[in-house]
């Protein structure tokens, strides 16, 4: 194609690309610059300090505690979500009375934000007047109201459960797509040959939906790693940093403790980690598209 012909499509592409590059490129460059300089409380960069900000961060026990919690959080939310979503999607892909209503209820939380979910749960879990305690008392499951969000030991697992709940809809959608793509005739043949439902699932369904499982894992890792709102609304990472994950701790280091340089170093490392998973996602998604 001749050059003048390419001018038009590039002019059409340019504004979108420019906005994306500006909104992501500027912050990344700025973070890189700050991470190797001394930065004062007002955000002005001073002397070049090399890796000092990174080594300060590595000496911070709260950073490592948040790091450990992020691993637990991401692994639990991702695996919990997938373990719930596969059977739910399997059921929702069968034909039964009221299926469309069941689907709607399962998928609805996707549209209602994590913020709203967090706010309502914060009230539902309220130690004194919350409805969950009312239910537990009513059914005699506890004789005293439980303070769900008052200590990290209880609050963090509770936050994980809510994180799973928020991630289920999108994951179910992925697996609904997976199950609808299965070749029906092969399954009919297997049934005629006498394969039981468990064997069929183990040796046929699972291998066939494997690419979708990969995509679901990578997507959920990305979402869980980034989920700021749920923890921030439930506990703000407290009490005493006991429920902080990296994203909430990052926010505190930058905007509450005012350590912009260390926060930038932390932010860059998190960005790099995220980029690895985004590349994985792109590879899986591209492969799926090629099929």
């Amino acid at each position, binding site marked *: 194609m001749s050059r003048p*012909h*390419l001018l*038009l*499509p*590039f002019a*059409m*592409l340019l*504004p*979108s690309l420019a*906005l*994306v590059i500006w*909104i*992501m490129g*500027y*912050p990344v460059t700025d*973070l890189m610059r700050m991470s190797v300089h001394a930065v004062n409380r007002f955000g002005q960069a001073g002397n070049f300090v090399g890796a000092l900000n990174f080594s300060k961060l590595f000496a911070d026990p709260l950073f490592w505690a948040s790091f450990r919690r992020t691993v637990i959080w991401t692994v639990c939310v991702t695996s919990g979500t997938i373990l719930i979503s596969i059977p739910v999607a399997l*059921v*929702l892909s069968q034909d*039964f*009375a009221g*299926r469309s209503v*069941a689907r*709607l209820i*399962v998928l609805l939380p*996707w*549209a*209602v*934000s994590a*913020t*709203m979910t967090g*706010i*309502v*749960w*914060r*009230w539902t879990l309220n130690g004194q*007047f*919350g*409805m*969950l305690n009312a239910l537990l008392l009513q059914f005699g499951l506890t004789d005293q109201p439980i303070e769900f969000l008052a200590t990290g030991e209880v609050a963090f697992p509770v936050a994980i459960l809510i994180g799973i*709940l928020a991630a289920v809809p*999108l994951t179910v*959608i992925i697996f*609904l*797509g997976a199950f609808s793509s299965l070749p029906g005739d092969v399954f009919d043949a297997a049934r005629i040959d006498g394969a039981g439902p468990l064997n069929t699932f183990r040796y046929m369904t699972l291998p066939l939906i494997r690419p*979708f499982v990969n995509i679901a894992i990578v997507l959920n890792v990305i979402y869980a790693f*980034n989920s700021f*709102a749920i923890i*921030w*609304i439930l506990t703000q990472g407290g009490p005493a940093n006991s429920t902080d994950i990296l*994203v909430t701790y*990052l926010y505190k280091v*930058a*905007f509450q403790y005012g350590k912009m340089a260390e926060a*930038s170093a932390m932010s860059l490392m998190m*960005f790099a980690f*995220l980029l690895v998973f985004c590349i994985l*996602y*792109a590879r899986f*998604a591209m492969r*799926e598209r090629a099929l």
Partner: protein
Amino acid sequence: MSYARKSFLFWLLLSPLLIVILLPYAVMLSTALKPATEVFTFPPRWLPETIDLSNFTIIWTKIDFGRALLNSLYVSVGATILTLLLAIPAAYAMARYTLPARGALRLFLLLTQMISPVVLIIGIFRMMSAQGLINDHRSLILAYSGFSVAFAVWMLQSYFETIPREIEEAAHIDGASWFASLRHIFLPLAMPAIGVTAIFTFIAAWTDFILAFTLLRTPDKLTATMKLFYLVSGTYHVDWNEVMAATLVTTVPIAAIFILLQKQIVGGLALGAVK
């Protein structure tokens, strides 16, 4: 197994999850209909003794929630329009022209649509404050569009590719100009995809937390999400009946959109996540 028994069994299997999903909505409704005196009683009760609709009027006067909803609407509609204005031509160019470096371009779009603002939030805050856009709704519109446009281009181009070129070419042969065939032939056919993309962009903006939390400062600028967050987080005493009424008002329109357009939205989500 009969159809009825199978249906019953499946509903039974799903019921634990359905109950956990619906519990917060029940709590929301129950609390929003109670007068303040009934909210803070121990033990709490599910059904209000007197149904009190005054919570729904109080939120307009006492906490100025109408303004917060208008702010949310303004930034979400603004971001949706800007995103579509940028993404439609870009997607058209990708679907209709043989571009060099097309593979690299697609990889770039696929990668950047997954980057979330959370890990870049310090840089974004500094960038917006360097532009003098802190506490300015324009900063939110720009940021929402920046983080949505890659997904929008991706989704639109995969749909545009399914619209046959021949239709436009036929219009050319009949003497229509390039622009006329675009406007009268192509765009009407592309409307469903544009609609779904618009809904995605709108919901992403409407439900955002971190950007509004970081970039807005004063009460008069807050979005509905932020207004609610500050109501439950800042003060010691929280008027939960009012908060739940406001949460309900914020949630119902989005839930209604979702229920009405479930099929298209789910189709789009599957497309975005998998392809």
